[in-house]
């Protein structure tokens, strides 16, 4: 393992300056659950590690004007414990429920999960479905990136030199939305998904689909919305049959790969199988929300 210098800047400005000064040889450190492992495996060998832990404000969650803002340093455990997220953004709560283990969730952050851009990142598909916007600060000031433009492929993001993710803004969901994320994995804990399925449903009073969002991870090189399947469902009654067909359409939009972890064929079959299941759970949650009034 390579030696490195460790910094704990106390402001974003200071952190950006450190990144600028050290260029390619510097890396940001959040919880370290991805980065430190990669350094130990010698997949990355930065000379400078810039920790974000002492920068104020990055660990905050804020809900105002219907918009949720999650700081980049918010841990998965904080998300798991946030009642508001479980109620209103159930799919995000689903995503962290089985992420790693409690020990991992206590240190791992949502910012790290997104910026690491692993195809298996559990929060990716939910955030894509939610249409999140990433607020990034860099040498040239602040900019916002829609999440589907952020991922550029496995391990690659739109972040430029010296840029730091500050927070993730999640627009309000339409009234009466229900959502669900299914992590399809071999084990119940300490496992990465073989497939991630995020569904959001917004029905009207007659249970006709007003809006549907389907986001998939590991169904292609980066997380994406299954737009044809979404279009197919929209305007149709929310029946099992409709969702089965939507699942099949999404299979056609996917391009999963085979590895020793599983086969492309199995992944395809699971896309078709799990989209209707995610939809069914989302629908139950709609109903529950209504009953709650």
């Amino acid at each position, binding site marked *: *393992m390579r030696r490195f210098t460790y910094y704990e800047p106390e402001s974003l400005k200071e952190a950006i300056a450190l990144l600028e000064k050290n260029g390619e040889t510097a890396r940001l450190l959040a919880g370290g659950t991805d980065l430190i492992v990669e350094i130990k495996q010698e997949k990355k060998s930065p000379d400078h590690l810039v920790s974000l832990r002492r920068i104020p404000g990055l660990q905050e969650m804020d809900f105002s004007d219907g918009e949720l803002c999650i700081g980049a340093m918010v841990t998965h455990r904080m998300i798991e414990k946030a009642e508001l997220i479980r109620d209103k953004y159930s799919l995000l709560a689903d995503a962290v429920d089985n992420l790693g*283990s409690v020990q991992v969730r206590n240190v791992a952050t949502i910012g790290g999960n997104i910026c690491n851009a692993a195809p298996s990142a559990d929060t990716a598909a939910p955030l894509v479905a939610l249409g999140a916007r990433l607020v990034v600060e860099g040498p040239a000031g602040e900019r916002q990136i829609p999440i589907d433009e952020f991922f550029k492929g496995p391990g690659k993001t739109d972040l430029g030199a010296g840029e730091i993710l500050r927070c993730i803004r999640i627009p309000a969901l339409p009234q009466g939305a229900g959502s669900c994320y299914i992590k*399809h994995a*071999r*084990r*119940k*804990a*300490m*496992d*990465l998904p073989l497939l991630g399925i995020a569904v959001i449903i917004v029905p009207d009073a007659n249970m006709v689909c007003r809006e549907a969002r389907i986001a998939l991870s590991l169904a292609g090189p980066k997380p994406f919305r299954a737009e044809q399947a979404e279009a197919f469902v929209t305007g149709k009654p929310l029946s099992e049959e409709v969702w089965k067909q939507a699942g099949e359409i999404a299979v056609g939009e996917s391009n999963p790969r085979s590895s*020793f*972890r*599983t*086969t492309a064929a*199995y992944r395809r*079959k*699971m896309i078709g*199988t*799990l989209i209707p299941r995610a939809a069914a759970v989302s629908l139950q949650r709609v109903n529950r929300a209504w009953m709650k009034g």
Partner: protein
Amino acid sequence: MAKTLEPKTKEMEFTSIGQRVPKLDAWDKVQGKTMYIHDVKLPRMLHGKILWSKYAHARIVSIDTSKAEQLPGVRAVITGYNTPEIRCGFIKDNPVLKKDKVRQYRDEVAAVAADTPEIAEEAIKLIDVVYEELPGVFDPEEAMQEGAPLIHEDKGSNVLKLPWKMICGDVEEGRKQADYIVEETYKLPFVTHCCLGTSGCIAQFDAKGNLTVYSPTQIRYLAQKDFQEALNALGLKGKKVKVIQTAIGGGFGSKLDTYPFEFITILLAYYTGRPVKLVYSREEEFFASPGRQPVRAKISQGCTKEGKLTFRDVEMILDNGAYTSWGATTPSVMMMPISSLYQVPNIRYVAKCVHTNNIYSTAMRGYGNPQATFAIESQLDTLAEKAGIDPWEFRMINRNKPGEITPQKFEVGSCGMKECLEAVKEKLQWDEKRGKGNGRGVGIASLIHVGGGARIYKSDGCGTILKLDDFGKVSLLTSASDMGQGSETVLAQIVAEELGLHVEDVDVIMKDTNLEIWDAGAHASRSTFVAGNSALYAARKAKEEILEFAATMLKEPKENLYLRDRMLYSRNNPEVSMTIDKLLRAAHFRTNGRQIVVSEFYDPPTQMLDREMKGNFSAAYTYGVHGVEVEVDKETGQIKILKMVIAMDVGRAINPMAVEGQLEGGGAMGLGYSLMEELHLEKGKVLNGNFLDYKIMTFPDMPPIESVIVETYDEKGPFGAKGIGEPPLVGSAPAIANAVWDALGVRIRELPITPEKIVAALEGKKGS
């Protein structure tokens, strides 16, 4: 459920035996106070590191170590070219540092000793090796074909000259008698032990050239012998070797042989004149510590209309990998279930071990038994169905019975197979749950394993020394090894019981080949039985001495005296009573007095297998039955284990809590083997050598395990006990495969039983 063993007299009511004594080593372990090899530091100690091969099969053209040698802090760089040849493995086909050729990715090409692990690692990267790649062979069946690349040119063939064969009765006759026959092929993967403590050792020479090796080995004395041979190769004939066993962070068979890394550490210590420590990283542990050997088994069995088995015919091919360790001898144990699980009159078994450029294999809990039992017990369900007989009834019809002699000439003493079958049937609610289909199912599988040692070496013995001190405490020096299975605790209970003391009065010492006697190692589930009897007989000798002295001193007939609760009592005379410590002091502090020290060497009354591979090679046999209830998601293929019942005939549970620990631990390991464990190799290279991609069960994945302890009291065992270390994982996989069959009507013949395989099988069923 357990058949209770009535105490015969008042003083026979046990105080330690049968008690739920928490493992004596548990407190230190959970507080991080236990000294594992990783924790041991010696003065002036250096750190060793190995350079592994970059190819599965290649000629070594040249090795340039000059850059590594110049790195500050590097104390020695060794290769096969600058050290004397040392070979390891029981047929010595594995040079510890490779010369001329590498045959697998985990081949040791060079090694370094340096001041720090970091420098050693850096130095390894500075070694330049030029290879010329050779075509490899990675499939044992391809390796057997004419013209396949030879792994060892000098052997002339990839098929190991170790043909396994056993014939009992006449299989052709058995086929004729059968009304139903099933023939199938089963396939089992590479898996590995996943010990929490990775492999490692420290080697140290004293000024006179005597060697001390600190090692978490399961075989102190056999390792001592192997290391002695290494000294001969170094020209140090006549020098002494001592093995000091550090706490074992899991063994499961992985530490049952000696391996190149140990000899490399010895070489590094020799050339530097300083202690050298070499410990595997987790990644190294995955690819460079041998695991369980993959098996392809062609099996057929037949039965009459009444359901009596008439024959069993098994052919196996084992992937031996590049070199030979104990993996190649697992057919000797596979013979046991093949010949003796259920009453089968006619048996044929042949097995071939074939070299490939894959990693090689060694012993792993069950030692071949899980592979063989998976094939036998899975197929029994198919056969039962063909014969129209309930699988549980089918097993009852063919079950083993106390006192029988099996076709392989095993003399079965106690046998609780019937009790185990009945217990599992009841706990699983077999009759209500079975045959419902609909995604839920139940399955069972039985097993047999050695429970009274196994005469693999000419001696299957184990020694004990007992020293009774002036405070009524006992030092129990045993040559057994505790790798977590609880031998320390069980041996202390046995001695405490016999001497009328408490468990905490006994200090168990098991660590140094100079201190203890000899032992064949912690294998074959033998420690409770063999080391237990050794300790028991030693304690009897000590008791005899105590009572004799007390009889003279107190002028009471010896037959009337007994020890209990740290006291001496007389059966007839309530006036007579004395604390044991006082008695021991009285025996010591007098003219011609002495402390009581006794020794015992116990070798069980067994036979080596003869040329036909027959003979009573264990003094007792353990039986057990696994039962599971599963729920399978027909769309995703995911299996949920709703319930797992493990019923084992342990003769007597010396410590029921420890037995449950074995049952639950074995159950977890068995579930992993059944459902998710597999080392994926691509052209000899391990692809998933980490805990993310090599899946073992986690706590949330574990179903509740119900342990049923059946006690049949085995005449030969210590207080009636039989071994139970390996059996609890043996029957898991076939029980699950049988439950999946009951749930879905698909038969999975290849482990692990993954969702992908279930989905594919269901699609195949729909298609046909």
